[in-house]
């Protein structure tokens, strides 16, 4: 069942690449989304679904008293060292510009957990306590396990939370109605698989690869590796020469590849669970003069890796589009806070869904750069479901 779903995602992923090259004129990036289906796709197509899908925030309907209340806006993230995570904060800023435009009074802040579960929960509790109900927040739970605790923290004071990436399988937004509004995720398995396949194709379907995992025990890392393993199953001639964790860190990846290159100088490619580590791998290859000869893939679309895609040293990376994740999650929460929409109206597949990711390969990189690097994309945050991959 799961496998089939993934296959679908993969197919969609490759389609997107094609689509992207086809239509680049529109300033709206509607075509760059990866289509996918979610767990709850069964409910799709019902009447409510259609109605909900067309929902847009109408600023004129927001009661003046709501506009005059100070709304506390936050995004809770793992630390700003990572460029991808920084774009989430940027996404919040963009959404706040929208709030300005409709005259909403607000205060925004970034909650940095520094990679600690405990801190993230504390931060959320403190934020919720301060806001006393008038709060909306985006959270990237450090580990899937703490998502319910974050929701609980918000539920205690009556604010609204949207989470991304990580949550336990048996708990979901419905368990904390109405305060846990949505949970979204880019499809890690699909992304891991897509980059892996791009890498294998570039190697001609055979050869040795190095695998650098993210932090041990991290959901995103595990799922991406799962995607890789699925791809490996499809390419029997690809052999994993070495596999270890780089802890998401550039220098650790550098050390790993440096060491591995000694007993496997004939490596054909390096698959990394994120771009930070891909940077390290590139650097190690560069020192041996193998940059550009041995392909590297990552996930996150860090600026330097996107450049690498451009010059050919990187085969592929994926942008999870932090702007969109951060901004739209808050937009949905905002809609619920204002009362324009209620969580009861939302079917399950509008509570938990996948967000579009953008696959970046040599073919698509130029468009990506024009769209997201040279200019910051513009979003219409009143169209709150724009962030839904299957919309």
């Amino acid at each position: 069942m799961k496998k089939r779903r993934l296959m679908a995602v993969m197919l969609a992923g490759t389609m997107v690449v094609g689509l992207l090259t086809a239509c680049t004129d529109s300033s709206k990036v509607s075509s760059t989304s990866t289509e996918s289906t979610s767990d709850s796709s069964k409910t799709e197509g019902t009447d409510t679904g259609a109605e909900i899908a067309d929902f847009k925030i109408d600023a004129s309907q927001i009661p003046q008293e709501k506009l005059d209340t100070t709304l506390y806006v936050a995004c809770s993230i793992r630390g700003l060292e990572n460029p991808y995570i920084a774009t989430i904060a940027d996404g919040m800023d963009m959404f706040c510009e929208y709030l300005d435009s409709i005259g909403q009074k607000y205060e925004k802040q970034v909650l940095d957990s520094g990679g600690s579960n405990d801190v993230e929960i504390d931060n959320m509790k403190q934020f919720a306590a301060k806001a006393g109900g008038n709060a909306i927040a985006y959270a990237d739970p450090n580990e899937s396990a703490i998502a319910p605790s974050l929701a609980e923290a918000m539920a205690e004071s009556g604010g609204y939370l949207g989470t991304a990436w990580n949550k336990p399988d048996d708990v979901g937004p419905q368990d904390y109605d109405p305060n846990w509004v949505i949970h979204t995720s880019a499809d890690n398995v699909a992304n891991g698989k897509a980059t892996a396949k791009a890498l294998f194709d570039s190697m001609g379907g055979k050869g040795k690869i190095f695998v650098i995992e993210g932090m041990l025990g991290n959901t995103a890392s595990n799922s991406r590796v799962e995607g890789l393993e699925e791809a490996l199953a499809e390419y029997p001639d690809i052999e994993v020469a070495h596999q270890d964790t780089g802890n998401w860190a550039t220098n650790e990846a550098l050390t790993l590849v440096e060491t591995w290159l000694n007993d496997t100088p004939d490596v054909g490619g390096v698959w990394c669970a994120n771009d930070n580590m891909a940077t390290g791998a590139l650097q190690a290859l560069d020192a041996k003069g193998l940059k550009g000869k041995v392909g590297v893939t990552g996930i996150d679309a860090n600026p330097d890796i996107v450049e690498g895609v451009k010059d050919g040293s990187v085969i592929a990376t994926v942008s999870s589009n932090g702007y969109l994740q951060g901004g739209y999650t808050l937009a949905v929460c905002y809609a619920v806070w204002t009362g324009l929409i209620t969580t009861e109206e939302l079917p399950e597949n509008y509570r938990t869904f996948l967000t579009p990711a953008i696959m970046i390969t040599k073919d698509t990189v130029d468009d990506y750069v024009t769209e997201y690097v040279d200019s910051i994309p513009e979003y219409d945050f009143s169209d709150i479901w724009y962030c839904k991959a299957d919309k």
Partner: protein
Amino acid sequence: MGEKNQAALSIREEFAAKVKADNRREKLMKWAPVGVLAALILVFCILKGSSFLSLSNLSAILNQWSLPLLVALGLTFVIMIGSIDLSIDGTVGMVGSLTAIFVANSKNTANLGIIGLLLAVLCSVVIGFLVGVIHVKFKIPSFMVSFAFMNICIGIGMLSYSGKPATIRDPLMMAIPKASFLGIPVITWIALAVLALCFYIQEYTPFGRHVYAVGTDETIPKAVGINVNRIKIKVFTLAGFCYGVAGIVGALRLGQGQIAIGTDQMFPAQAAVVIGGTALTGGKGGVMNTVVGTLIMTVLINGLTMMGVNPNIKTGIQGVIILIAVIFTIKHGATVISK
């Protein structure tokens, strides 16, 4: 009486033998870290054979050794005066981040070249100086001062690139990590140069001697009229310099400046310094001990990585080896006090 004399003689002989044995043991202990290193190399040679000893792996070991060596060198002096420095993660990361934004890079238009590097090192030297000054002038334990500065430096580093690390574009800087001289990577040469400097300072300057004195018993140099505070400040400043060079090396190796260059450098460095035989109580050990200590750590990690040991167990093995190395090299006995 004659018999008693005989016995007395044997007591003396026994005593002499004991002293000799103790001396021999102590001398042996001095070489124990080297023994551990040799044993590790031997084990990896047997298990991994040619690929471990291959030229390219040796060069990789040297490359990986540079950064921990630089960090540990600075820390050695701090530990020799009996203090501790937790600021490493911050200072190294900060310098790494700053290096990238001072030289030609993808983020801004600064192109200070070598001056940029000097400026970056200067930053950590200033931090080291501040740690030292606050430590001695306000009489705050170095543990706390350096803990505070670890946070401050991480903050500065993160602030400097605000989430989007700068990639180094300076062609010279980009060439350095790839270049090698006499088969040894240039980066290692940089580390070796700092090593030579530290060795020179330790052995051939009054300051070096005074460092030992301050670590052994502060009241003595004070009584001779040596300014102990100034020595301590100098030690932290020197440490700052070493961390600074480490930060630059880290940034050059990565080709990018980010705070992660410094992450998790501190505890392994402490372990390396102690394994090498420098006592945490101060006054004992030195730069050469640290060379061995860092080599042990580097070879261990390199070997375990090559053998593909389960990464979950890898840190555990490191811990056990640290423990064994220390248990075998320290003095035991009822009257020994260890804190």
